[in-house]
């Protein structure tokens, strides 16, 4: 059961290595859609281990998964503001906060996702679907440069990235609804 701990820690170290870090941050879409999610993956692996080690603590503070989920939504929304990506590049305290808060999201997700049950999961899923669509529209349609550290073409690329994610999520919903699962399971 130590395996997730090692995977998480290793991935974390790789992401912290300065050349890798600065490369990822030099391209807007990699920064937002690869580095940030990978930091959450780090937290998810570490979370698997920590929740397994101390289930009682999580039971006490996050019994139904809702408090955890609220924080997850808040922190991820926070990192989707155009400003925060910029600040992470120019102000070290934001960068440090990024490397702490996003693994925390992953950790909370590992604990909360199963706890919020079907209804909660569907709610969160649709919430993110519309949020990504909105972000895609914001970055594509904005006539001004939202981030000082990135060029407007990078901003457009990121917009298309968000649209792609939204489309994939819709496809997932459609196949979930229309494909008859019973036959596959047989």
């Amino acid at each position, binding site marked *: 059961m130590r395996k997730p701990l090692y995977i998480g820690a290793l991935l974390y170290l790789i992401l912290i290595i300065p050349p890798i870090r600065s490369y990822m941050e030099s391209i807007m879409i990699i920064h937002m859609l690869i580095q940030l999610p990978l930091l959450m993956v780090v937290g998810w692996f570490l979370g698997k281990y920590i929740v397994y080690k101390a289930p009682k603590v999580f039971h006490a503070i996050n*019994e139904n998964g809702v408090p955890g989920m609220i924080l997850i939504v808040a922190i991820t929304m*926070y990192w989707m503001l*155009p*400003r925060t990506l910029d600040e992470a590049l120019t102000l070290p305290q934001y960068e440090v906060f990024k490397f702490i808060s996003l693994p925390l999201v992953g950790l909370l997700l590992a604990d909360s996702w199963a706890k919020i049950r079907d209804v909660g999961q569907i709610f969160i899923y649709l919430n993110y679907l519309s949020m990504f669509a909105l972000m895609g529209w914001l970055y594509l349609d904005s006539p001004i440069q939202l981030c000082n550290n990135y060029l407007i073409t990078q901003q457009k690329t990121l917009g298309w990235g968000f649209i792609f994610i939204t489309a994939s999520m819709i496809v997932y919903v459609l196949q979930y609804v229309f494909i008859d699962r019973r036959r596959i399971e047989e």
Partner: protein
Amino acid sequence: MNKRLHNLLLICFSLVISFILFFIGTNGFQAFTAESARVYRLMEEKPLFPNVTLEDSKERTYPFTMFQGKYVLLTFIYTACTDVCPKLEMNLAKVYERIPAELLGKEIIFLSISFDPKRDDPATLEKYQALFNSDGDTWRMARIMDEVELTALLDEFGVIVIPDGSGGFTHNSAFYFVGTDGELLDILDFQQPEEAAHKVVEVIQNNMEG
């Protein structure tokens, strides 16, 4: 029942933390982009214009302190720029037209500072300023030759310049309104020249009366 209360409290707690996160992260829901945050920070700090040496389109060289006692409305540009700079300068020209003639040069100086000193020599600046009817005296265009001074100035005023890979630069744009002692008074929206002119005249007239 006790358990429900416990869960409810935890939910409230996480909501409060989320609220604090956004409140601090956006300066009290005011600044959602780094540009607005930059303006917000500069307005708090009110940095002094660092002492730099300017070389203008008439090949005159002088320190910025020469403008002491006068207001300065300035922009950062480079002449090879094709997108935002012409717009920025055109709007600066609109502000310039709206300032009463008796104030120009006496109470206020317009200044366009190039951050591309290699290409923007006095001759280039001279040509560029003709496009905007800038006379080179009450509205000057100048470069800063010393790289250290230039970087210090851009840093102090939070101007971020990134090379776009094809010989140009991308940068954030605004009108910077500098007071009589070189202190930054205000950052004005360059897309609202009427408003900027109004504000500038108001400040100068208040100062003359008071």
